[in-house]
């Protein structure tokens, strides 16, 4: 019941959630790494390797991240408020969670790209992505680092997108998920534009990104920061006065 | 216990009084604490406290700050007079009323009581 413990518990909760989520998904990541090692080896028997398998895993990780943000906040909201947490504390905890998770996944993404670079190099394969203008190799070690440097930001953008939809789904039981409609294309569009790549998902999303992929990575990164901030503010705004649903008798 | 409809604290007070009358609580003896009463009878401690307060007001118990509740030295004398009064009011008055309704002459009752006195002796 000491005041200092109360003042900082939101950060402790956020860090704890990040730890728990990473721990929970560690085998998934391990499985992704194993697949990314095995699949190119298999394909190499029949065709040349030009694409980074790990980049697909990273894209899957972005989806996961959105589900983690949304799923956790949806589940935690009633549980934590019933346990005597304020909504603002939960919002702060989700913020810490999102940042730590995104940094951790960004680090995993970067480590994976470099490991894959060494692996592909040993076999003389090309590590590229499926870009708009054909297959584009990621490039030198410096290029790879620059490529991966945006990953934490992208993960955070997906996390914020998932969280805002999670909160909205709790708040508006039947209609909240409709926020997917404006949120998803924006985040996908920015992601796709940043790497001027073919989208993971339906083709029309790539179409969205193509209007802005001439901007260059600097302005696009700034746009992603802005979009993430807007999503985070929206999530917080929806969270801080949400009533707990009444229980069905 | 606790079923005759009167407030529970009064029932507890009555019970403590009965224990004093039948000697299981000695004058000067210590009474259980409100919390012990509450835990034993599964009642709210405030209810037990009300019973004690009433008994203190009547001079049956006295409080020693920080030590507990004790039975007053003259508690039994006080209660005896009280019991006598209540016996007439609660037992004999309805008896007379019912006897009258049933058409039983009071002299019959007096004869019966006299005979009982012989038996009890």
């Amino acid at each position, binding site marked *: *019941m000491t*005041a200092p413990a109360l003042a900082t518990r939101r950060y402790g909760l956020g860090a704890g959630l990040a730890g728990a989520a990473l721990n929970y998904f560690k085998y998934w990541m391990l499985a992704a790494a194993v697949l990314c090692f095995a699949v190119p080896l298999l394909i190499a028997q029949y065709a040349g390797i030009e694409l980074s398998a790990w980049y697909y895993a990273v894209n899957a990780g972005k989806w996961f991240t959105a589900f983690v943000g949304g799923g956790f906040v949806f*589940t*935690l909201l009633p*549980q934590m408020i019933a346990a005597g947490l*304020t909504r*603002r504390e939960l919002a702060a905890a989700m913020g810490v969670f999102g940042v730590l998770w995104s940094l951790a996944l960004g680090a995993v993404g970067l480590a994976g790209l470099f490991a894959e670079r060494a692996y592909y190099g040993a076999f003389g394969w090309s590590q590229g992505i499926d870009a708009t203008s054909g297959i584009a190799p990621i490039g030198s070690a410096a290029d790879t680092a620059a490529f991966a440097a945006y990953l934490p930001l992208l993960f955070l953008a997906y996390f914020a997108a998932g969280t805002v939809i999670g909160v909205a789904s709790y708040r508006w039981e039947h209609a909240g998920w409709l926020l997917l409609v404006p949120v998803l294309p924006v985040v996908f569009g920015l992601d796709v534009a940043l790497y001027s790549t073919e989208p993971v998902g339906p083709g029309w999303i790539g179409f969205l990104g193509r209007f802005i992929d001439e901007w260059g990575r600097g302005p696009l990164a700034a746009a992603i920061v802005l979009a993430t901030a807007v999503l985070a503010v929206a999530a917080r705004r929806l969270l801080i006065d949400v009533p*707990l649903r009444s229980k069905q008798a | 216990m606790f079923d005759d409809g*009167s407030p529970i604290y009064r029932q507890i007070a009555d019970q403590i009084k009965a224990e004093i009358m039948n000697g299981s609580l000695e004058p000067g003896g210590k009474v259980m604490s409100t919390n012990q009463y509450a835990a034993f009878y599964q009642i709210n*401690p405030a209810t037990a406290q009300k019973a004690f307060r009433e008994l203190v007001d009547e001079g049956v118990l006295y409080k020693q700050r920080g030590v507990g509740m004790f039975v007053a030295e003259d508690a039994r004398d006080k209660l005896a007079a009280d019991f006598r009064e209540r016996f007439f009011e609660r037992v004999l008055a309805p008896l007379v009323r019912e006897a009258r309704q049933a058409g039983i002459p009071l002299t019959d009752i007096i004869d019966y009581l006299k005979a009982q006195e012989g038996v009890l002796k």
Partner: protein
Amino acid sequence: MSLSVTLRDVSLRYGAEAALTGIDLDLEAGKIYGLLGRNGAGKTSLLSLVAAFRKPSTGRILVGGEPVWENASVVSRVALIREGGDFDDTETVKATIESGSIRPSFDTEYAYKLADRFELPLKKRVSALSRGKRSVLAAVCGLAARADLTMFDEVHLGMDAPTRDAFYKELLAEYLERPHTVVLSTHLIDEVANYLEEVVIVDRGRILQHADIEAFQGMGATLTGPAAAVDALGLDALAEQRLGGTKSITVASALDADTRERAAAAGIEIGPVGLQDLFIHLTDPNRNGA
């Protein structure tokens, strides 16, 4: 430190429907309260507001003298346990108990002790628990929260009679050891009556009565006797029954000595009214006003 509760002119609307209207209520710190009301009377809404699960449409709610809404130093000391608990159903019982420690006052050791006593299967998932066990888990987490204001909303639902009895015993033991404010919302009034110090009756979104339990216990009476004699007393009856020439009425007010004497003289039997019966009569929808 127990917490008091103060509501001033509080109302709550769900869309067009008014759940609570013009609620003024003061609960003193450190007492056990019974919150009674029919289904849909507004008990759960009222508790949800006090625990800051919801925001009132109008009015002020203070807990421990401070506004409760989004106030971490207050809500961290308030526990509202809803029927079935607010749990992540995919978690195990053990993980659910462990997650209680987000509350500074939560006593994990005590929670495990209770879990053992109430035979909760620690390794089972919450979703796999029976309704009764789920209620027990909610009650265990509520007790172990060791909050300064603890409110149980129909937590007994699904518990069998021996379990309810053990729960009330544990609640009282915990209260005796560590005085705090408790609110029990229930339908099983006679079962909890002895544990209560004060009773609040909610009816149709308003506070109908709030008084000491003794006031309720002394409040009602049934009078049974010859119909003419009963009528001659001229009492305001909450309910009445007739069987041949005999009439039985229930009154809400305490009988004065004079009425008792007149009734006794007329051969009318006076009996007590249980809190449950009194409650049923007081909240009868066919009664006008209160």
